[in-house]
């Protein structure tokens, strides 16, 4: 595109999504920073005061504006970025409407200082409510600075809608950090009330921008994603399930470098976390999607915060798969950081005695239980199947989506030894250099849930008939609910008939749960489904699995422990229960060596 700014003709401008461009200080920042990016800047400094309401400044080292073009830049539809509407199908700049500067300038006082590299000096133009007040020479390195003062001073209705300084500041930093993540090739420095709040170094490494924005501690919580597929590619970082947050603040999605909200894509990503994270928690992600420009429509929203992708349904499924695969590969077991033995200081002599006895006592009890179970059977010592350490490479391979590429856990898990059960609740698995502590209920529950789900999805459920129909007494509302959901209930594997007004007779049950108390499980399923109507399938299967699973405080024999552990490890994601709680924790020999001060 030539540097010249022109005014789009009426036919063209009429086809551009019209409406409010400037809603709050953060939207001003977004427009100005995008202009800097479009101008080819690789260093952008931002400063705000009073949440941006009082003062905003954006300076860049981009190509600048010719003096003669300045008035045009402040005209509606004045842009250098497109000439006609067909240019939109190949757009690579953020801007294209020629709306931002006039919209901002009409509700504030704007000072523009700009210099192109061909000129020896800069010009400074002062606007008050879009009126050009003065244009003078100034000194400046090549680039552009836009200062915006007194936002909305002439539109009290808009002004009233602003939140307080603190909240507006938050919106401002939020947009800046997302733009910084989107444009890793540019260094961003943001100063807020004279304090630096964001600094990225612009070395084009996304990870460094992430550190700049979220701090270095995030490094342990994220997984790299990098995959290409027909029609799009995706790269970036996703959070590990355990590093989930209480809101969606930490989710950034960029489509062709535009920070956008795209509910379908967000759902596709979050669904990949289903069963891995707890309700009310949201995954962290910074993901960049690149799709061919002709598949992208950027002209759908006046503030350019939304885009449309023509092959979205295709991408929806593939993206979900990519994220799932990345999570599966990770397969990190939750390691509790709070497990730490307490050591006794030598001054605390009196207490010391008690504590030591206690500790020893527990230890010997523990080893006694372990010993007892070991004695009962030693068959596990004989399992010497070769075990290949899974590769540590977290990045998703490019291209292929076929399931065969995924290494299943099934064969990776041996050899191991069941060291025993403790508190009648946890199974201890000895795997050479580390141990798993498995929550027997959560583990079994997860296993049953996945079996039920698979059968439900594939419609392959096996229904076991029962000898004496089980009568379940229910309320008339429940009866209504049952008849509304009868097809679903049958698909899960139940067969029943109505029996009088207030009860039903169950005649068949899903054979996967044939060892549990059916009446209890069925009622629990009904209750849970009525309370949680959103995800019926998940809720129902989960509550059945919960009832069918072995309880805590139940003694298990070696065979049962083996059954639970091995079947669990066959699953794609064995480490979290359907509600995202861990099914097992891991401790290494190194941890123990440290506890006992064998190593320091």
């Amino acid at each position, binding site marked *: 595109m030539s540097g010249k700014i022109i005014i789009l003709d009426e036919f063209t401008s009429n086809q551009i999504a019209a409406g409010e461009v400037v809603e709050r200080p953060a939207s001003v920042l977004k427009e100005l920073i995008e202009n800097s990016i479009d101008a080819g800047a690789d260093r952008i400094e931002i400063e705000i005061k009073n949440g941006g309401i009082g003062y905003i400044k954006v300076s860049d080292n981009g190509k600048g504006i010719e003096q003669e073009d300045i008035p045009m830049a402040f005209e509606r539809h004045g842009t250098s970025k497109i000439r006609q509407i067909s240019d939109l199908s190949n757009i690579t700049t953020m801007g294209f409407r020629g709306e931002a500067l006039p919209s901002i300038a009409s509700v504030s006082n704007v000072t523009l200082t700009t210099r192109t590299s061909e000129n020896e000096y800069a010009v400074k133009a002062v606007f008050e409510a879009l009126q050009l007040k003065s244009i003078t020479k100034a000194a400046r390195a090549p680039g552009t600075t836009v200062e915006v003062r007194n936002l909305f001073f002439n539109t009290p209705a808009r002004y009233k809608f602003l939140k307080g300084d603190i909240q507006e500041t938050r919106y401002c930093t939020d947009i800046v950090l997302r733009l910084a993540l989107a444009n890793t090739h540019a260094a961003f420095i943001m100063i807020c009330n004279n304090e630096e709040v964001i600094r990225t170094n612009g070395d084009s490494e996304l990870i460094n921008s992430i550190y700049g924005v979220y701090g270095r501690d995030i490094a342990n919580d994220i997984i790299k994603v990098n995959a290409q597929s027909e029609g799009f590619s995706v790269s970036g970082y996703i959070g590990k399930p355990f590093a989930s947050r209480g809101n969606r603040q930490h989710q950034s999605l960029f489509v062709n470098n535009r920070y956008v909200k795209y509910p379908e894509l967000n759902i596709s990503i979050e669904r990949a976390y289903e069963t891995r994270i707890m309700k009310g928690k949201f995954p962290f992600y910074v993901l960049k999607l690149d799709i061919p420009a002709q598949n992208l429509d950027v002209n759908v929203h006046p503030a350019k915060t939304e885009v449309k992708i023509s092959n979205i349904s295709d991408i929806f499924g593939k993206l979900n798969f990519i994220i799932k695969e990345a999570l599966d590969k990770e397969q990190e077991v939750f390691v509790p950081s709070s497990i730490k033995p307490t050591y006794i200081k030598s001054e605390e002599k009196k207490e010391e005695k008690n504590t030591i006895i206690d500790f020893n006592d527990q230890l010997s009890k523990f080893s006694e239980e372990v010993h007892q179970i070991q004695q009962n059977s030693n068959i596990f010592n004989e399992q010497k199947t070769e075990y290949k350490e899974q590769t540590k490479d977290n990045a998703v391979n490019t291209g292929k989506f076929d399931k065969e590429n995924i290494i299943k856990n099934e064969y990776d898990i041996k050899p191991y030894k069941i060291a025993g059960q403790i508190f009648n609740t946890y199974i201890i698995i000895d795997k050479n250099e580390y141990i798993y502590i498995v929550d027997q209920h959560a583990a079994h529950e997860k*296993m*049953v849930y996945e*079996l039920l789900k*698979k*059968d439900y999805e594939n*419609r*392959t*459920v*096996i*229904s*076991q*008939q*029962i*000898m*004496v129909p*089980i009568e379940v007494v229910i309320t008339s509302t429940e009866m209504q609910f049952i008849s509304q959901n009868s097809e679903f209930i049958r698909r899960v594997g139940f*067969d029943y008939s109505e029996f009088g007004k207030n009860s039903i007779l169950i005649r*068949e049950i899903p*054979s*996967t749960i*044939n*060892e549990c*108390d*059916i*009446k*209890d499980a069925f009622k629990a399923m009904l209750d849970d489904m009525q309370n949680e109507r959103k995800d019926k399938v998940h809720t129902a299967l989960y509550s059945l699995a919960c009832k069918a699973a072995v309880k805590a405080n139940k003694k298990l024999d070696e065979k049962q422990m083996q*059954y639970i552990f091995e*079947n669990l490890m066959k699953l794609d994601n064995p480490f979290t229960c359907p509600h995202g709680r861990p099914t097992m924790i891991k401790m290494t020999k190194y941890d123990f060596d440290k506890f006992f001060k064998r190593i320091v």
Partner: protein
Amino acid sequence: MNFICTRKKLQEAVNSVSKAISNNPIMPVLGNIYIKVKDSQIIFRGYDLEIGIEHVEDAEVKEEGEVLVNSRLFSDIVRSLGEEEVEIFTEENKLVIISGNAIFNIRWLDTAAFPKLPDVEKDNKVTIKTEYLKNMIRNTIFSVSTNEQRLILTGALFESEENCFKMITLDSFRMSIRKEYILGNEELFKFVIPGKTLNELLKLITNDDEEIRIYYESTQVMFEFGNCKFISKLLQGDYFNYKAIIPKEFITKIEVNVNEFREIIERNMLVSDDGRKAPLILEINENILTANTQGEAGNVTETLYIKKEGKDMRIGFNAKYLLDAIKSINEEKVRISFMGETNACILTPQNSDEFLYLILPVRIAS
């Protein structure tokens, strides 16, 4: 207290009574063995409030008396001793155990805190050979219900019927009935014994060739055999009207060789033995029975020549239920009668009614 006895007798006594002593008793006192010396006998007792066992051995008694000793320790000591005679006596607060050159001094406790074993009146009695009872229990115990919601079904029904002694167990998916003829037993009885009791009783009966006398009251039962008395609570309530669910009319009857069929089931279970319980599908076509399992790990198909009456059919089962039943059949051939794809089938002997196994099928998604 002072007596001399062989180690073998002590060992037998301890083995018996420790079946009623839990490792983790509800009351600490129940972790002890009760030993009483009277006349020329030693009486050993263990009791966990559910079941009680009394074992009697004769000995050379020097002084009568009674003590409680820690069951674990006492058992370990007895097991460790050599074949010599064992002399046991109390000395103040110590119990002295002498065998060969070994002298143990262990603690004993006063017997006052030990709960009395319930008395069972000997008015009502059934007598049966230990071997028969054992087989009956073994061949039915697997279908005792584990669902505590219907407590009565967690036990086995013992019932009399015209010179017959019948045992019935059932859970939600199958039923097992065994019958033994016992002559000269006119009494009518019907009571339900907890499954756990029967499991312990099985372990306790070591001699197959003696009479076992069963004394029953309304709330408890006592088995008397050899040197042992075994007392248990009975489950209360009406047992399920099991006769009502035994089908009478069939559309297909087949006869199969028990061993062959058992092996087929076992082979099928190799691929179904995962959490999903892939069903064993039986297809009856003319005189060929095809057994097939489509499991997660793989699939297996096998055919068997059979004798058949009635229609061809196809039906699916939880293989384990079939296996439990077939393993309990001590005959060369078994008759399997079907009422249809979605109805129970029954396994019976060719020409008698000594056993009946009823199994409900699974519905196979088509």
